[in-house]
Every structure is written in C-alpha cells, then in structure tokens.
C-alpha cells in the first residue's frame, strides 16, 4: 500500500541533484551554456506554476503566461519609472501579479473546467493585446528596455552575474513550493483533484483552496517573468503569448505531471532539445515534433515516471519469489 510520502524522497532527491548540478555548472561549462541554464530556470518556474494548478489540483490553466508577463513588465516598470533596484522591483512585480491572481481567481476558480481553460487563455491574450496597444505604458511591440539592471547585456556577458542571482531566487521559491506540496496543504489539493465533491463533503473549502493555489501559482509564474528580465533585458508583449502557457504544459507533461521534479526535469530536457535542434538544423518544427512524438510514445507519463513503471513488475516479481512456496 502506497503511503503519502512514497516517492517524496526520490522526487526531492531528483530536485536536489538538479540543484547541485546547477550550482556547479558555471565551473564546468562555457558562458553560453550557463545562459541556457538560466533560461531553463525561467521555464521551470512557469512549468512549476502550471503543475501546481494542473498536476496537484486538477485545474488546467492555459494562462500562466498572463502572470509571467505581468511579473516581467511590472518589474521593468518599477525599475524604470519608480527607480527601484532590481530585487525590490522583482518583489513589487510579484506582489502585483499575486494581487492580479487573487482578483481574477475569485471568478475563475469557480468556473467549470473547460470554461476555466478558455478564460485563463483569454486572460493571457487580453494582456498581450493591452501590452501591444498601450505604447505609452509598455512601449507597445517596440519593447520596453530595462534600465538600471545590475548587469549589462552583451555577447560576452558576465553570465555568472546573471545566473547565480536567478538560481538563488528560484531555489528559495522552489523550496517554498516543495514544502507547500509536501505539507498537508498539498494533500488537500490532491484530494480536490481526485474528487472535489467528496472533498467538499469532508469539509474542505474547495473554492478557497483553489483560490489559494491559483494565487500562489500566479506568484511563482511572476517570479519567472521577473527573473527573465535579467537575461532578456528587453520585455516585449509576447511575454504574454499563449505559447508560453503551452510550453509550460509541454514541459510539465514531458517531465511528469503531479510530481515536484517533473517540471524541472522537463525544463532541462526541452531546453536541451530546443538548443541542439536549433543549432543543427533549420527544419526545427519537423524535428521537434518528431522528438515530442517519440517522448510521448515512450514515456507517456513523463520522463520522471519511466523508472517507477519498470520497477513495479520487478517489485511484484520479487514479492512473489519471496512468498513461501
């Protein structure tokens, strides 16, 4: 019989291993790969935010890009207009996104699943439209250049200066998320995912819990958006694009839904695939589609789930062989 803590060690173990590799990376690889890893951190954060909603609570959000983009723009605007330093602006940006998440969530979490998908999608698209058509505020699709960044962007860049702050902030946030999902809160969310009606009869305040995780996910996505400013330096309206939300989904499914380490592994995997495919060919769509297909067929529940499946027959074989004859 599986207990709640089953897999926690492996799950956390994988995440810890990734963290160690991430911390040591700049000592081993060149600038370019460090920056690739930085982009993986951002992708991972958005995917984690998606996984919190979809994997843990059963809410399919197609609009995490809305909060990602909000985090990015708010951070840049607070730096440029309010003169804040990067970290203060990041905090402010995340705060704004959390507020937006709470306000929109009040209505959104009460919608039925299909409506929830489409309305979260519409939220992201609406924000992209506003960003594109408000040049005085956002610069329109000319983009908004971040002034007062701690590090200048350049080809030969101080990659470590960009990477380590991102890793540090992301680690803090992800440790918090890990604690959250491994706590009783996480258990309650999973109960809601499995059977919300039953959870309600057991006394769970379903809408309040959903609102809570929706707000949390908005914050996590916004951290990703704010951090992305460090490496991108210019924010464009396509930070709200639904393809970012779709990417979060792909990354989570590739890595493994409902596991903490799933989105992290998925982000690394997809980041590597995109990078090498982009280097080796110009038929990127075809190759990426084929790879995606292969992964779906070979690892239907995500890469982190592959091992568990193979273990079961062996475990049961060991169990039967150990049984008295």
């Amino acid at each position: 019989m599986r207990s709640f803590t089953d897999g926690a060690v492996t799950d956390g173990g994988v995440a810890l291993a990734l963290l160690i590799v991430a911390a040591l990376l700049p000592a081993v690889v060149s600038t370019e790969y460090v920056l690739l890893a930085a982009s993986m951190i951002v992708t991972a954060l958005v995917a984690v935010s998606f996984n919190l909603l979809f994997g843990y609570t059963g809410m399919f959000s197609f609009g995490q890009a809305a909060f990602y983009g909000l985090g990015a723009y708010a951070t840049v605007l607070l730096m440029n207009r309010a003169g804040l330093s990067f970290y203060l602006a990041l905090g402010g940006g995340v705060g704004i996104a959390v507020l937006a998440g709470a306000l929109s969530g009040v209505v959104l979490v009460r919608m039925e699943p299909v409506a929830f998908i489409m309305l979260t999608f519409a939220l992201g698209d609406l924000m992209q439209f506003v960003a594109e058509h408000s040049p005085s505020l956002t610069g329109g699709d000319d983009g908004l250049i971040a002034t007062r960044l701690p590090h200048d962007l350049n080809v030969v860049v101080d990659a470590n200066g960009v990477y380590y702050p991102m890793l540090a902030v992301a680690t803090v946030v992800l440790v918090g998320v890990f604690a959250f999902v491994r706590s009783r809160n996480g258990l309650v969310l999973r109960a809601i995912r499995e059977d919300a009606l039953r959870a309600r009869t057991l006394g769970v305040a379903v809408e309040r819990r959903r609102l809570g995780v929706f707000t949390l996910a908005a914050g996590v996505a916004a951290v990703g958006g704010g951090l992305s400013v460090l490496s991108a330096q210019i924010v464009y309206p396509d930070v709200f694009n639904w393809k970012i939300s779709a990417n979060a989904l792909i990354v989570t499914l590739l890595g493994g839904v409902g596991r903490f380490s799933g989105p992290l592994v998925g982000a690394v995997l997809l980041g590597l695939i995109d990078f090498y495919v982009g280097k080796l060919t110009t038929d990127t769509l075809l190759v990426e589609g084929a790879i995606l297909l292969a992964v779906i067929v070979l690892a239907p529940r995500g890469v982190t789930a592959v091992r568990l499946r193979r273990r079961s027959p062996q475990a049961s074989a060991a169990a039967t062989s150990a049984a008295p004859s």
Partner: protein
Amino acid sequence: MRRKVALGFAMAIATALALAGCGSSSSSSSELAPGAPLKIGYLASLTGFCSSFSQEYVKGAELAVKQINARGGVLGHKLQLEVRDDKATANVGVSQARDLVLSGHAKYLAGTCSSAVGKSVVQLVANPSHVLYVLGVSDPTVFAGGPQIYAFNTIPSATIEGKNAAAYIRAHPQWKRIAVISEDYSYGYQVTAAFKKAMAGSGQTIISQDYVPSGGTDFSPYINKLIAEHPDAVYSTVITEDTVTLVKQGLPLGLFEKTKFFGIMDYGTIDAMPKPPVGVEGYTFYPSVSIYRATGSPFARDLESLGTTAANGGAAGDAFNQIQIIAQGVEKAKSTDPSKVRDALDEATVQTVQGSVKIHKCNHQIAMPIAMGTIVGPSAAQPFAHFEPLTLVDTNKYFEC
C-alpha cells in the same frame, strides 16, 4: 540512479561540446588569422509571422557569398555563411546570435525580418563586443543608439517611408480627404505617425486610420468601412500576405474603383496575385532585379541566376546587399576588425543591387532609393506585374542628418 547517470551524461556531453569550441572569446586581437574564413551568422526567420520571404533572403545571402568567394573572398579571407532560424522571436534570436558569436566565432551577423529580434540583437552586439550586424528592418528605434552602434540598416525606415508617401500625396492637393490603412503592429503605427507628421500643414485631412490584424483572413469589414468613408485617396501600408488578402477581397467590393488607392506594392506580392490591381499606384523598396536593371548595377543581373522570376528577386536582393556591405566594409577598412569596419562604413558610399548608395553616419541608415509607379500587367519585356512608368526616388532628401 539510472536517471542521475543519464543527467550526468547529458551534462558531460554538453561540457565536451562547449570545451571543444573555443571557450571564452575574449581574444585580444579582433583580426582574423591569415587565410581563416570570415564567418557571417545569418538570422533567417523561417518560422514566425514574417517568414514569407525568408528562404529568398537566404538564397540571396548565399549567392553573394558564392560570388565574393569566386573572386577570392575579402582580403584573402573566404566568406562562410551560417544560417539559423530565429523564429521571429526576440529571445530565440538573441540565443542564436550569441551561439553564432561564441561557439561559431562569427564576427559578423546579418538578417532577420523581425524588428523585435533586430532590436534585441543590436542591443546584444553593442559596444564593446566587436561584432557588426547588418540588417533590414523598418523600425527606426532599433538604430536609436546613433553613430556608435554596431549595426546598419539596409531598407528605408518607417519614417522615410512615411515621408515619401506624404510627398506623393501632397503633390496631389486636389485629394482633400485621405484615409490610412496599415498593419496592426509597430510598423503600421510608425509609418502612419511619420506620414501624419509630414502631412501637417498641407491642407489635406487624414479622415481615418485603421489597423488590420496581421495574418487576418477577413478584411471585408475594413474594406467596407473604407469605402463608406468616401475618401479622396487611400494610403495603404498593408504588406506581404495582407496585401494579397486586401486586393483579393477589395476587387469584388470595388475598392479600387470607388477610391483612389495608393500604397506599398512589392513586386513579389503583386506578382503572386492572380489579378494584380492594374492601374493602382504604388511603391516598393525591396530591390527586385527588374526594378534595378535601369541603374546598371552588375549585381542586378547576378540575382537572375537564382532562377526565381525576375520579379521575385526583392527579398533576395536585400540579403545580397547585406553581405555586400559587410564585404565592402572590410575592404574599405583594410581590416576584418568589426570596429574598424564600422568606422569605414560610416558615411561611406557602397555598391548595392540598387547601384551606388550613401550611408548616413548619424543613424546608420542606408539611403536606399524607393521605386514608384503605376501597376501594369505582364508584358513581353517583363512577364510579370510591374510598375510602368517607373521612377526611382532618391531618399537622401528625407534624412535630417
């Protein structure tokens, strides 16, 4: 355990590949070793919203490289082109540009059809990175850094385009009421703004400004609206696929009979239309071979070897120019150091498909001429829709510096 091993393996491969390259690129001398190839990284937007002519761009760039190498290269260095897909997205473009420079050791970059990519990559190659970027985008703010930046623009900016159109409209003072229709993104806004500014004080009124969604499939509501406004003239900066949609849907609705229509009509676009809008006046600045035969530039004939119809040389010609400008810059500077090449190109006169063209130092814009004329159907001499009569407008007069 297996997974950790796999992950470690992946990291090891990545490391090996990274170290197999040159590692950090902070070499003190920016001159190429004698005989070493001069690498040019080409950002081709093969997927994404402006991808229609991207394969043509690549062909044009490859042709220029081939011809320059056939003559021995530049300063004894053969050119080497490496093409990447930037997906018309800023962060992909930046990542590809960085990879081309760091792993690929390219000191020169060219291409992209997206102003957003252009803007971000220009930011990337800013002083002191010693990488020069030659591109053709319409957004003038990309080059806002002024004479210090490591980038040059090969097509007229939206500002120049708007001023030129205003000059044409002002030359017809009997058209009192002008309606403007453009693309719903920065290019459309910038051209319209420049047009409006240049029209100030003309006595002619701009009665409406409409922006159509790029890639939209149904423009008939916009066309009906335009016709209902009864303008004396319509100025359109709807481009590529959208021009085709506008014309196809506009013809049965009587747009070209009920209004005097004037706008950007690139040869590659009107040639693709089953029924080009004959009699409509238009302009283009993409250096289609057929337009620039008149200038006597030897490059004009070269593009015909691409095997596309003479009309479709437009985008290829722009990419061809980009490579030519890099090569001529190197020769003028007598050096492969991008900083020296940049200085040599400031205020230089370069040979392009459009003939001799001047570069303006203040904003790194190249004063490419704009071709204007009335659309006619195919003829024996030019078996594709083209302008007749054709005038070439010298755009130097639209520069403020």
